[in-house]
Each structure stands twice: as structure tokens, then as C-alpha cells.
């Protein structure tokens, strides 16, 4: 599989990273180098192999479904680039 400029632009869009038009050829070429390296995985017979989903086999702990934290909006907002009246502020989303 190889990635052309259009696919590279699509990936950048999905990742929400602005990539200027003139940077796309180099980006596509880097993707192809890395994907070429990854292609080696096709040599491995993975029939009947389960994908690894948990690093150490363990049953996740459970706890009562109750609120254990919260009630500190000032701290939550203290690092926000733009916070107003107790909310995160962003550019207009809905017309």
C-alpha cells in the first residue's frame, strides 16, 4: 500500500493537524517509508491468534458507582487558554 498526497492530506485532516500544501509530498514520502517498514508484519502467520488486549492478565478492579471527586471548577479551569464565567471558551461552533 502506498500513500499519495491526497491520502496524506486526508490523514492530516483526520488528525486535526494543519499541513501546508507544499509539505504534503515530503509527508507522504515519510509515511511510505514507515509503512514500508510496517509491511513486514504481513510475513507473520496470525491465523487463530487473538489480538493482545491486556498487558498483564488481570481482572480490572471494580468500585461502587459513586462520585469520589469534583467540585473544584477553579482548579479545572486554571490552565485554560480562555475561560469565562466558569466555562471553557472556544470559537463559535454552531451558526
Amino acid at each position, binding site marked *: 500500500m502506498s500513500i499519495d498526497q491526497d491520502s496524506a492530506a486526508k490523514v492530516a485532516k483526520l488528525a486535526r493537524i494543519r499541513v501546508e500544501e507544499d509539505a504534503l509530498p515530503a*509527508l507522504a514520502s515519510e509515511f511510505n517509508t514507515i509503512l514500508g517498514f510496517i509491511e513486514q508484519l504481513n510475513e*507473520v502467520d496470525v491465523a487463530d491468534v487473538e489480538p493482545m488486549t*491486556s498487558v498483564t492478565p488481570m481482572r480490572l478492579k471494580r468500585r461502587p458507582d459513586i462520585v469520589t471527586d469534583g467540585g473544584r471548577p477553579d482548579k479545572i479551569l486554571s490552565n485554560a487558554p480562555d475561560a469565562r464565567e466558569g466555562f471553557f471558551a472556544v470559537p463559535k461552533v454552531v451558526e
Partner: protein
Amino acid sequence: MSELNKLGLAEARDALRRGETTSLELTEACLGAIQDAGALNAFVHHTPEIAIERARAADARIGAGDAPAMCGLPIGIKDLFCTRGVPSQAASRILEGFVPEYESTVSQQLADAGAVMLGKLNMDEFAMGSSNETSTYGNAINPWRRGNDDAALTPGGSSGGSAAAVAADLCLAATGTDTGGSIRQPAAFTGITGIKPTYGRCSRWGIIAFASSLDQAGPMTKSVRDAAIMLGAMCGHDAKDSTSADLPVPDFEALLSGDIRGRRIGIPREYRMDGMPARIERLWTDGADMLRDAGAEIVDISLPHTKYALPAYYVIAPAEASSNLARYDGVRYGHRAALARGDGITEMYEKTRAEGFGHEVQRRVMIGTYVLSAGFYDAYYNRARKVRTLIRRDFENVFASGIDAILTPATPSAAFGLGEMTDADPVRMYLNDVFTVTVNLAGLPGISVPAGVDEQGLPLGLQLIGRPWEEGDLLNTAYALETAAGFVAKPGKWW
């Protein structure tokens, strides 16, 4: 006592308990060494006020007869750990100005154990890199040089600042994190010891996430004994990390007998790579001889899927990174791009992430996005996870056959020059992790121990890989190797 910053954790602890020095003296010696070492660019946020305050508190505790494991010992903290009230930005521009309101579990446990934080340490951006060249703070510099050549060398990565700081005696020890080799490779490049424990030993809570199924914290120290002391303080169950193991933490230091008689040490034939430098090959053979002389049995073993570890890693780690780094969008913390008239929220996301993330991070986020995208998920991501199952099974089979630990080189070369890999394709840089990445994929403990120097006087490390949860036994084997190797070289001070 002179040059207190040159002490290790165990020596300093013993001196404190004997009343021969104070934490304040130790801390001031380190702060002085840090001030003189700007050229190494290891410490990137300095916290002398916190250090002095904690040192005084530690001296009071020691005076009152209450001295926990790390009491009064000055250490550095990798910038990946969130530290309350102190900038924590994963060496990324996108977290510029971020000052956490909370403390990571590991750094809190170290503080509770009396450790003195000197400041935050340089690293690759979001721990993505093997040379500390992707940091927004600029390169950290290795205190080691090739003979009399003054070319600047990489301390390795991603925990490059931690490695440089410990090797240059700016602190007694430091925290690191390891996703594909980021503790062990820089430890090997700087002649120090670094251990990545079993996945789940150290809480990941409050450590800025890169690839959550691979990330583990660990200590970077001047000796195996120091690693045992500091690891014990860092480990333990934490309800705030769902993958944290609820297992007792042994007294690792008490397990250091150096007696490895009857231990079976595996030498994996697949790690004998084409083009491996003769010096690395000899170091590996010498290491096996040392363990044999100490009474261990050396056994040839096979880990047949080794070759596929790096390609599997470079699917899984970017996939997890693309999810984890989605949170940096200019809304809740860190950098937000200046917007043009008429820009909406999509432009805010795209411009913020383009400005805030460096090149390597952008590349990995996009690769991760691609392998997770519709139509490619099975071909790349699921296949990589199946290969991961096979890689773990290789280790399980070897351990089930009675192998106690596995000996390999830590890195395929000694430290290389900063800038030397700039024009190489990204895959060449990825090869640095060829011996370490399997351990993260399988979730096992691994330790790098300095074992020799190359023709130019640069340190080289050997890696030991242990059974899950048996860091105590692994540290003891490493202790025997350390004793036999007798590595005492230090970099000459030029900075």
C-alpha cells in the same frame, strides 16, 4: 565530606543516618552542580526553593528518627511527570505554561518517602525519540565524549535529561519513563543503571501519556543497589490507575545477595543482528562469561518473533499516541493558536496542533491516525496486536522452560553524535530500540547495566530481562553482573 553530589543513593542515605552530612548539604551540592552544568541542558525547570524546603523537612525527620527509604536524597524528575505548581510540559510547546494542580502518584510517593525534588529534566517531546533531539527545550547533551573529540553526543532518549543529569552527578538519581526503551537506552549511553519494571508496577497516574499499554516509570541511578532502593519507593498499587497491580512490593534491596548460582540465563539467538558491531558482540559474550563465572548456567534460547517487534511497536505506539494526544486541542490547557478572522473551531484545532506539536510527534500522531482509520484497522492495528500476542508467547515459552533471565545488549551502538541522524529516515532512528522494545510489548521488567566501554571510551550497557513481577530476582542478577563487570568509568568534566 567533599563533592556530595557524586554520591549514590545508598551511600548518601547511610551518611545521613550516621549524621555525617545533612540533606541540606547534599541538596546544596546538587544545586551548585546544576548551576555549573547549563551546557548539558539536562534540567529545564529549576525548583531550588522546593528543594531547600524539602531538604530541611527531611533533616527534621531524620533528626526525629523517622527516615523513610529516600529521606533527604536529592533527585531529578523527568518533565513527563506532573508536579503540582511546577511546569510540566513533556518537552512540548503545546503544554507551554501548563502548571498542574495535582501531583503524579510516582512523584508523590517519592516525596512521601522523603526525596528532595531538584527540578524537571529534559526529554524527547512526549517521550517520542531516542536522542533527546525532539525536545522543545533543545538537545540535552551527553557528559561523555569520544576521547578528546569535543563533538556533542546524544545522551539517548527519551529520558535523555535524566541520564545526563545522573551521569554528570547533578543529582543522586532521577525518574525516567520507558515506552520502547526510553530508560534503558539512555542509561546505556551514559554509563548508568536504569530499570523498567513490569507493566503495572508503577502507577501511570499523572504521567503524561504516550502509549498507555507500553508506558512504565522507573528509576535511573548510579548503581543497581540505588535502583532497588528507588524502585521500591516508586512502586505500589494505586486505585487511580486501573492497570496498576495490587501486589505486595518486596524489599528489593534486601534481595541483593549477588548469589546467582544455579540461575538459568538465556541468550536469544535472534538478537544477534546482522551488522552488529564487534565490540557489542564481545561485550555480550563477556557478560555471559561473567554470569557463568558467578555460577549461572548459560542457555541458548530462541525468541522467534523478535524481528517483528519493532514494526509491531511502530503500529501500536503511534495508534495509542494518536488517541492520547487528541486531548491537546487548545481548549483545556496549554497552547492555543492565534486565530484569524472567521476561523472556527476546526481551524483552532488544526492550527493549535500544527504549532504546538513538533515534527516527530505530528508524524507519529498521523501514522497512528492512519493505522486506526476505517479500512486499515484490521490490516495494521489488529495484525500488530496479534503479533504482540506472539511476541509475549515467545517469552512465556522461554520462561516456562526454566529460564530465569535473558541477557542481551542494551543498544546496537554507543552514543552517537547529535545531528548525525538528522538526515536519516525515521526508521533508522527507530532501530535504536531494537533490543528494548520487545520487553515493553511483553510487559516484562528489563534493566540496563553499564558493562564496558568502546574503543573511544564511551560506555556500553547490557540488558537483563526478567520474569513478570520478579524485579527482585532481576535486580539480584543485575547486581551480580555489575559486581563482575566492575564498571567505574566516569565522564571527565568539560562543562
